[in-house]
């Protein structure tokens, strides 16, 4: 993975930069020794590691503002970091950049039940929000698998999803307001407790911007009332096509399940061996469909889903009879990644999205690619929204296998784009898919996105080396050649 070359002038000024940061953040908030910085050398894309220039852990918005202002004035790069659980290398350090950790922003500032929202600091964990409001029957809907550890600020940066986003939306659909510090140190507030704001939706564009546009210092999230009931049904199919047809038929019937997950045969076997969820072992594909809402609705819809599944040739149809059984159905799915980890030294988790009606074709072509690259692939995915998580099994200690795994992963993502899908459904581009952006976007598309970055960060100091395969200078991007009067009036209808 190529990162931008380190700037020797910055490296030479390290002591000066550390001293300046210490004047802004006193005490232990600046970490400059090797042992102290070691825990920050990677995020959850742990195949790639890099020590930062220095780690700074501010505690106040004023400190964040002063740090960014200092960095802007002195041309120092900054990598923002939440909990460091990015699967795409979004918070991977850069050798000549400050690592700006937001972990100390860990307070819930306000819970407002009548307006169904909470104002929290960005370092609060995703699950921490739900924990703070569940006594009143509320929760925060997006539920990425890392929710016990990942921070809400990181969720905003990555626009995180989760199992339930088919029905409840991604992070972007569950935000009301943000406070953001811009690279020039300015603090702006976007949205609030009200629903709609006029003007450009800068909160919308901040969300999922992967730390390239600003640093989030406060988040106002929407709270939802917890559904009164949830029941799951386990559906086994003798073919992947049958399972895929079932997914399309459920949605075609006007049913939006709380979650609709699919596992292929290998994933079912791994998960079953790992947690003993009682999965049927004689199936080619397994679906877990969860319905939530009022009991009468859940009972009604689960019968309809079961009927659709039988019609599509399901060999197993098991409805959870109590909460314990529902959680058991999920236990296998939730443990699928570590379960796969038991049978391979390493795995690479991908994240493309494809249109549902191309699912069967994509799975079959993935098998061909598996043969071609001589590496196994196991599939676990959010079938409801076509978001695939193929796991490529390999051994990172074998340089050839690592290279083949990277090539295989790139081929799978190209396939996703080819069938009308996208490179990443919820994990982000980061460094992992950066060099594939040209598969989905033209040069003009990417230039437009980079120009937007220039509006926020004209010197490209925030989270360098991420998302864009090649950063072009803002002056170059801004150049415009106009030939006054030389373009004829187009031959179009005018009135």
């Amino acid at each position: 993975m190529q990162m931008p070359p380190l700037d020797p002038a910055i490296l030479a000024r390290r002591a000066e930069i550390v001293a300046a940061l210490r004047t802004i953040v006193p005490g232990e908030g600046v970490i400059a020794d090797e042992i102290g910085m070691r825990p920050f050398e990677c995020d959850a894309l742990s195949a790639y590691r890099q020590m930062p220039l220095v780690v700074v852990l501010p505690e106040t918005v004023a400190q964040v503002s002063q740090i960014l202002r200092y960095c802007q004035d002195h041309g120092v790069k900054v990598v923002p970091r939440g909990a460091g659980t990015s699967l795409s290398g979004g918070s991977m350090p850069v050798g000549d950049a400050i690592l700006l950790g937001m972990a100390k922003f860990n307070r819930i500032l306000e819970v407002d039940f009548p307006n169904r929202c909470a104002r929290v600091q960005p370092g609060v964990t995703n699950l921490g929000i739900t924990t703070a409001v569940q006594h009143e029957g509320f929760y925060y809907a997006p539920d990425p698998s890392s929710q016990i550890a990942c921070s809400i600020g990181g969720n905003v940066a990555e626009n995180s999803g989760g199992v339930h986003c088919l029905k409840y939306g991604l992070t972007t659909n569950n935000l009301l307001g943000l406070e953001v510090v811009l690279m020039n140190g300015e603090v702006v507030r976007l949205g609030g407790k009200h629903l709609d704001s006029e003007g450009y939706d800068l909160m919308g564009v901040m969300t999922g911007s992967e730390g390239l546009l600003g640093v989030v210092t406060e988040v106002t999230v929407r709270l939802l009332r917890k559904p009164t009931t949830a029941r799951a049904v386990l559906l086994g199919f003798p073919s992947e096509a049958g399972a895929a047809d079932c997914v399309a038929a459920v949605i075609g019937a006007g049913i939006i399940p709380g979650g609709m997950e699919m596992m292929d045969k290998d994933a079912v076997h791994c998960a079953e061996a790992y947690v003993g969820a009682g999965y049927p072992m004689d199936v080619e594909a397994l679906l877990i469909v969860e319905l939530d809402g009022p009991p009468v609705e859940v009972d009604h819809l689960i019968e309809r889903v079961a009927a659709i599944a039988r019609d599509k040739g399901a060999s197993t149809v098991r409805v959870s009879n109590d909460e314990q059984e529902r959680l058991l159905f999920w236990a296998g799915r939730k443990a699928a990644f570590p379960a796969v980890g038991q049978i391979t030294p390493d795995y690479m988790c991908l994240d493309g999205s494809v249109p549902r009606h191309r699912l069967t074709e994509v799975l079959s072509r993935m098998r061909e690619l598996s043969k071609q690259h001589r590496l196994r692939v196991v599939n676990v995915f959010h079938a409801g929204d076509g978001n695939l998580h193929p796991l490529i099994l390999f051994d990172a200690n074998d340089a050839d296998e690592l290279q083949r795994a990277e090539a295989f992963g790139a081929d799978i993502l190209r396939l996703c784009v080819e069938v009308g899908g996208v490179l990443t459904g919820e994990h982000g581009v980061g460094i992992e898919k950066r060099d594939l952006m040209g598969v989905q976007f033209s040069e003009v598309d990417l230039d437009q996105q980079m120009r937007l970055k220039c509006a926020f960060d004209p010197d490209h100091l925030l989270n360098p080396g991420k998302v864009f395969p090649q950063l072009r200078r803002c002056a170059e991007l801004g150049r415009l050649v106009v030939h006054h009067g030389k373009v004829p009036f187009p031959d179009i209808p005018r009135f």
Partner: protein
Amino acid sequence: MTVLLKPRDAGELQRTVAWALNDAVALDIEGRGSKRAYGPPHTAAHTLSLAGIEGVVDYQPEELVITVRAGTALREVEALLAQRRQMLAFEPPDLGAILGGAPGEGSLAGVLMCNLAGPRRIAAGAARDHFLGFQGVNGRAEPFKAGGKMVKNVTGYDLSKLMAGSLGTLAALDEITVKVVPAPEKVHTLLLVGLDDQAAVAALCDAMGSPHEVSGAAHLPASLAARSGVDLVAQQGGSVTAIRVEGVAPSVAARLQALRAQFAASAPALEELHTMRSRAFWDEVRNVGLMPPTGTPHPNPPPQGGRGHESSTSPLVGEVGGAQRRREGGSDARSSEATLLWKISCPPTDGARVVAAIRERRPDAQALYDWSGGLVWLSLDAAGSDDGAHVVVRAALAGGHATLVRAPEAVRARVPVFQPRSPALVALSHRVKESFDPTGIFSRGRLA
């Protein structure tokens, strides 16, 4: 006077923008022109209409997305979705009538560019939440795209969000992909009769905080309820507070029952609307049809050869190259007869307090509450002049946005139509605008 340019496809759109860029010609961008009287006045001598770029590109119901050309009429999109028992979850309002034009004329692009959402916004999100991707032309005359045709997609910046509500100031779109959802089988509404504003908003917030998945929460004071075309609403003789539940039949029945039980003690009287009446009632709320003045067809129909009608059949209508000019402002002049109409977005529990604070200085204010109190449609008499009302309205807010939706052009030119922002946000918005449209050819002065 303004010349209307109406390209018929993406290529013509690009060539039009290229010409404008090179000749430094300012363009006001509009969809089908139904909301031309919304926002600060148009100033450009040329209007770029998307009405000629229409038609469905791709619709597969089980994918839960639809891709259409930008100028496609909203009513056509909604009719197509209804055939497959689907809908746009954000329940886009048709503001045509309140802005002085004909109803049913707007485009999908127009609704997205104004980020308009109806009563279901409180449960299902705004227009921006359902806008997944687009193709268009930026102010450099470059065709570009962003987002995708997938519900779940985080590849690159979410430029669709930025386009939503941008009033055509960033790009001219030619293709749009939005999310769609299944339409509910049943729609029932519980009516609480006779609550004052404060008690009504409190009841709506209680309902929204209940586990009964309420998808609409509105309050009509007695004078507005009496205007309703739905007999059961108009005949109550008092204020009406409406709580909507939607879904499969057994679920709707159970939830309505539970809500009845919840409010049996607190409301003087309870009534129920079933599916047909519910739909009619919520359309009135959605399209702001009950705010004064209302109830009579507009005295001045759209001018002949004017806007909207001709474009759905043929983009040419024998007028190609002709220099037929249209009346500046079009529908706008007529709105001077109407009351001033404000749209206030505030924390839901604050809605009634905001209205009370405005009424202290403007007793003529009439208010309709939607979004559980978080959206207030507020009308003020004294059409034709603002009389400092914007100061009164905005002073009443404690967090939120107030937008002057309907006012004569002269007022909209003089008074800040949108909520003023901090200097840092204004500067950032200008930089964002420049990143798409460096020479400022698109919809100048409309937003940034």
